[in-house]
């Protein structure tokens, strides 16, 4: 296992910047999730770490070893592809064997390692089946065995669970995270599913339009999203946004727009005032209340009962959707006028132009 470091990595296709100036360090034994919508550059980044795609600029280091120009096999990485890609014309055993065919190990040693890898992921009984005869979960396990059999310096997983049904995805997700910790493996996991990212990652790197937006632990990403994109992408139901101005009133910061006057506390209590800001508030940090200061007038659009809580989807006064969490069993009729109270100490503030979070102090 190795530390993996990306220094100023770029990838351009013609005039299209797939990845822009990416700096990233993946620590030995860490599970780093690259999260982002399709086309954000996360798979390109992974392919560059693997050595399948040559970067247009920058360096890739495994420990102190510069592997930028080395082939995937020389880097000794293992990769699990989308849909747990396997050689369809070979049995599970032969598929795992192919990982070591070019390793120079003796046949008996390879056989021993194949058996060992198969035992770790519990696919001993499926070894003589062809991929088409395996279930989705079994394919995933065989692909994992194929990866671990070579004792790679780094595991790379490219949306391995995306084609599976929800229940299976849930169980394989924890299985993979457990395996990663048991092996102490350095692992990069690419996904567009923010729940997968939050549940599996030691750290998450959120990417959009070829740029790394933020990297941090799942809680940092959730609680302190650094950009408007991260704030909107991570978290379900998504964060609500309001436009307004940030004013200074006797040393206190107040968010003001047509419908709302909200004193801002918490991390933005000392941010520089400005005419245009975007305020973000998670649905869990707003509640329905009696009309009063710090309350936003909303009308009910839809009610979503989740059992343990209720998502009240409202139309804000500006026409944007505004979601509020209510206790289970909450009921209201569509079109009903309500007031949403916002906790001014839990809000996030973003610059309209840079779309980055305001700095906590002037």
């Amino acid at each position, binding site marked *: 296992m190795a530390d993996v470091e990306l220094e100023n990595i770029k990838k351009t296709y013609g005039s299209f910047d797939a990845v822009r100036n990416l700096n990233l360090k993946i620590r030995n034994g860490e599970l780093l999730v690259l999260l982002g919508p399709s086309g954000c550059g996360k798979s390109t980044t992974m392919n560059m770490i693997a050595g*399948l795609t040559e970067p247009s600029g920058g360096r890739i280091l495994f420990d102190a070893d510069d592997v930028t120009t080395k082939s995937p096999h020389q880097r000794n990485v293992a*990769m699990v592809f989308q849909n747990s890609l396997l050689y369809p014309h070979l049995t599970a055993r032969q598929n795992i064997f192919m990982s070591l*065919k070019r390793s120079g190990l003796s046949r008996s040693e390879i056989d021993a390692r194949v058996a060992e890898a198969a035992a770790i992921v519990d696919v001993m009984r499926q070894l003589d089946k062809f991929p088409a005869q395996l279930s989705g979960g079994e394919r995933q396990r065989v692909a994992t065995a194929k990866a671990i059999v070579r004792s790679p310096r780094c595991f790379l997983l490219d949306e391995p669970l995306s084609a599976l049904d929800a229940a299976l995805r849930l169980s394989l997700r924890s299985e993979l995270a457990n395996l990663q910790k048991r092996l102490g493996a350095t692992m990069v996991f690419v996904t567009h599913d923010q729940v997968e990212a939050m549940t599996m990652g030691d750290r998450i790197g959120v990417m959009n339009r070829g740029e790394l937006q933020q990297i941090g632990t799942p809680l940092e990403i959730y609680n302190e999203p650094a950009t408007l994109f991260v704030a909107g992408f991570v978290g379900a139901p998504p964060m609500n946004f309001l436009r307004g101005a940030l004013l200074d009133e006797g040393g206190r910061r107040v968010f003001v727009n047509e419908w709302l006057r909200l004193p801002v506390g918490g991390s933005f209590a000392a941010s520089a005032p400005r005419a245009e800001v975007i305020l973000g508030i998670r649905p869990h940090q707003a509640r329905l209340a009696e009309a009063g200061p710090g309350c936003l007038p909303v009308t009910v659009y839809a009610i979503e009962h989740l059992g343990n809580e209720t998502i009240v989807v409202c139309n804000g006064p500006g026409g944007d959707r505004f979601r509020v969490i209510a206790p289970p069993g909450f009921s209201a009729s569509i079109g009903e006028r309500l007031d949403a109270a916002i906790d001014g100490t839990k809000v996030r503030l973003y610059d309209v132009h840079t779309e980055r979070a305001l700095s906590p102090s002037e």
Partner: protein
Amino acid sequence: MIGQRFSPWLLLAIAVVLLWTFVPMYWTVKYAFMTKTEVARFPPVMFPHAPNLAAFYNIFGHDYTAADGTVYRASGQWSQIIAGIRNSLFIAVIVAIVTTLVVVPLAYVFARLDFPHKGKLLAAILLSVSLPPVSTLIPFYALYVQLGLVGTRTGLIIVTLTITIPIITWMLIGFFRNLPPIEQLGRIDGFSRLYIFARIIVPMARSGILVAAVIAFLFSWNEYVYAQVLSTASQAVTLPAAMSGFLFQVPEPSHLAASLLVSLLPPFFIAYFLQKHIAELNLA
């Protein structure tokens, strides 16, 4: 539901299509088992009174004595038919092999790799698919007269390859595009491009390659236009060209029909044994 699905109009439509398809075929099959006088009778005979195999004996050079003692003489063109079968088989097998050897790597490269001017080269292939073979007939003839290739099997093989290679390349490009990104898996495992192609892609694409070979075979087996012009009355005559003699030189409807049935046998058996693979290729 069932009543709706089998409405009288639908049944009528099915009946029309079936008649449309099968009556001409039946007409030909019927001829093969009839005597020349029966064929010439008017109004036409729907069912042969005494079906016989005379035509099949005759086209292979044997006399046939009917139950009533009439003797049907061997066809004067029987040696052409025998030579035609031999030449057609030989040419079709060579064309199938060469086409496959050329087309599989070619289509793979177009489907899976990027290289300069790929779009233009693809357009060139499509252009040669869209050219009607007749349009190159005269140029080929003129060229072959000078090169001494008229009436040779080599000449026919070359000319048939100019048709099969572009069409089958075009077919296989789609097939290769639909394969999963298995090359990346192979590169992670440390295999060379050549190894990945020869030992991973080719075995994976077995069905497609087999079907490509069969289609090349059938193209060549059925090819008539070039064969008629370049091989008729030569050592290299092919079966379709030889058969056409029964139509043009001395009209012999029952001999023509019998040789047609013989010429249908190889495609019939091939289609029968390969239906599984053809379905797998999913040309849609």
